[in-house]
């Protein structure tokens, strides 16, 4: 990078040093401005969160500062939302990671069959999650749904899919897995294929057992990819809206009232802007903390990768 800087400054001496210093800012500024435009609503949302603001009570609009947050903390429904969101995230990330890794290992070898399958596996990723939920809802319909039929053939009578608290979480995790596992698979597959060959060749020569190879060589080298995949998915799952809202609107009962579903209901059905804003701010705080951890670690890993490559 230093070389480029010298070259740049050499050319820049003609245009003046200030231009050279300004250049990177100029290049990145348009992108920043567009996103700053999004910052304004963000600030507004914070203001709403600090107010008692319900559209149906326009005269009661007032600043109650942290009142909304205190009310949330006192509300058992809020903590239930936290627990359900975390549960959903843990399940989806866990399942998708294991499944994705497994599939990636199966497809590791480069041959036409594996390549064809990897292409086919992109398909679920193309389907919008809201539409995927609709698809699965049709398939799990107790009357004419093909999955209900197949499951009943296997002897399980009246499986309730999304309609019973016991199976609702299972159903939405299933849909999420169907949509997003290919994403993880592709990521890990690329990682597997990019791994250097020497350690594996050496291990084979030495007659090292396969499990040892997997756990002590493959897995550690795959860690950056695994980290990226799981953190990316973790942040998306915490904010899941489309799938859960399309399938059950948060039900049955309170089984699936994750953050964004509840916030959507508060804002667009109950017109309680203040409380909805507070809810999303809490969600954002959680995702911000997690993404900070992620990006800092990513930078560290990248630096390390640069050092070793």
């Amino acid at each position, binding site marked *: 990078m230093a070389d480029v800087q010298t070259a740049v400054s050499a050319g820049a001496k003609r245009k003046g040093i200030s231009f050279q210093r300004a250049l990177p800012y100029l290049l990145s500024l348009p992108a920043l401005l567009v996103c700053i435009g999004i910052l304004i609503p963000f600030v507004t949302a914070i203001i709403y969160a600090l107010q008692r603001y*319900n*559209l*149906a*009570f*326009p005269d*009661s609009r007032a600043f109650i500062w942290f009142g909304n947050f205190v*009310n949330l903390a006192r509300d058992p429904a809020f903590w239930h939302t936290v627990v359900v969101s975390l549960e959903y995230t843990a399940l989806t990330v866990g399942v998708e990671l294991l499944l994705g890794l497994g599939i990636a290992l199966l497809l590791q070898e480069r041959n036409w069959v594996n390549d064809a399958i990897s292409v086919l596996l992109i398909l679920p990723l193309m389907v919008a999650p809201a539409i995927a939920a609709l698809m699965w*809802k049709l398939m799990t*319909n*107790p*009357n004419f749904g093909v999955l209900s039929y197949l499951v009943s053939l296997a002897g399980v009578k*009246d499986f*309730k*899919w*999304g*309609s*019973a*608290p*016991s199976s609702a979480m299972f159903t939405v995790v299933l849909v999420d897995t169907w949509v997003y596992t290919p994403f993880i698979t592709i990521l890990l597959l690329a990682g597997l294929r990019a791994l250097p060959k020497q350690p594996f060749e050496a291990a084979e020569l030495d007659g090292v057992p396969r499990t040892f190879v997997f756990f002590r060589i493959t897995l550690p080298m795959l860690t950056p990819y695994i980290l990226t995949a799981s953190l990316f998915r973790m942040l998306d799952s915490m904010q899941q809206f489309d799938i859960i809202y399309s399938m*059950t*609107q*948060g*039900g*049955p*009962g*309170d089984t699936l009232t994750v953050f964004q579903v509840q916030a959507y*209901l508060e804002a*667009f*059905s*109950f*017109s*309680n802007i203040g409380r909805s804003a507070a809810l999303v701010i809490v969600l954002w705080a959680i995702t911000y903390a997690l993404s900070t951890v992620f990006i800092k670690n990513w930078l560290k890993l990248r630096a390390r990768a640069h050092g070793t490559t």
Partner: protein
Amino acid sequence: MSSRKQKELIRAYYENKIGRRELLERMAKIGVGAAATGFLLNATATKTLAAGGPDFKKFKGKSIKLLMNKHPYNDAIMKNLDNFKSMTGLNVTSDVFPEDVYFDKVTTALASKGSQYDAFMTGAYQTWKYGPARQIVDLNQFIKDPKVTSPTYNWNDVTAGLRASDAWDGKAGSQLGGPGAKQWAIPLGFELNNIAYNKRILGELGIEPPKNLPDLIEKAAKISAAGKGYYGVGVRGSRSWATIHPGFLSAYSNYGLKDFTMKGGKLTPAMNTKESKEFHKMWIDMIQRGGPKNWTSYTWYEVGNDLGAGNSAMIFDADILGYFQNSGDTKEKGNLAYMPFTANPAATKPTPNVWIWSLAMSQFSKMKEAAWFFIQWATGTENCTFGAVNADLIDPVRDSTWKVPEFQKRLESYPGYLNQFQKSIGQSQIYFTPQQLFPEFTTDWAAMLQQMYAKEIPVDEGLDKLAAGLQRKLREVGI
């Protein structure tokens, strides 16, 4: 096909020289079919409306935009829209959204204070939010103003209970349609809740239609247990207000139960009284033993589909839902019948809760008077009759329309439909207590029903919890 002859006939009709039946017969003789007659009639009638007082052509060449739900009522309006356009010279465009997202769309559109939409379809419950939020217009000012309302509009022809249900003064606990109430919307078409049943299935099993709720529960359980692949009675169960307001609240009110009472001048939740708990236990028992398997995901569509496909023997829901399943190309077409339902064995008359699709005017519209012309026309006698006879604007909101012979004739292929209406209409109104937090409360109520159904919480405890929660929310907003 002399057009002059047609005009003569129609004029004679309007001057009461010939009756409607004679008109249709004579029109048929000169080659004009019933639908065409209806259209012409409407055209003339629209002219009559126009001949009234107001200058309907005042906004000639301008445009208004509507926000409508994807619904047969909207289709009925669109079918007849040309008459409105020729009467006023207005351009009318409309945005149609599917019902799944329609209400949220209206809330967003109003919240954004946009002047895009001038008038829109809504239910009465939603106006309990929009009215106090100052997002819609009190239409009393237009109805009472002869400069904008034709003398032939006949506002009193709209069923009294429906007119009242769309009016509220904004104070928690006030009666709907009481003194000082603001008319937030005008009724367009409504539904009352009764039982529609499959004659074939009941006949097969040798079961008579149920007389009251305990009877319904037993019979539904019996039907489900017959093991023939169908279940007893379909009711809604999704996590939303839509689950509470049809059959559930109709039966609830028949037992004399209320959602809120006034205690010491403040609204107090009343769903945890002893009688209410008994009722809830019965309702849940009914679903568990005789209801649909995936009840918690059941909406209007699922309940209707099951009846039409022969998967359920009865439904306790909107009468028009049962009506639609007896038309078109459903499997059980021709096998369905309708009856009024008095849930409480100790009561003498049914007390159905009603859902009224109505038209409201946005406070932010820049064409309010033109929007009123539209609302007036769409809810006027002529369009109401046209829609009832030639399209699917049922149940019509005007008393006169129910007496129109063609409409009654149309209902003949729906056995018991007219009868269930006539037996119920006197007691049909909205039985909810109006308050601004309606969506939230009914969602909480539905969620609690789901939990009790899944046996996650016992009924007594669940209702106490619900009442306590609602109480807290009421106090938080100061009502």
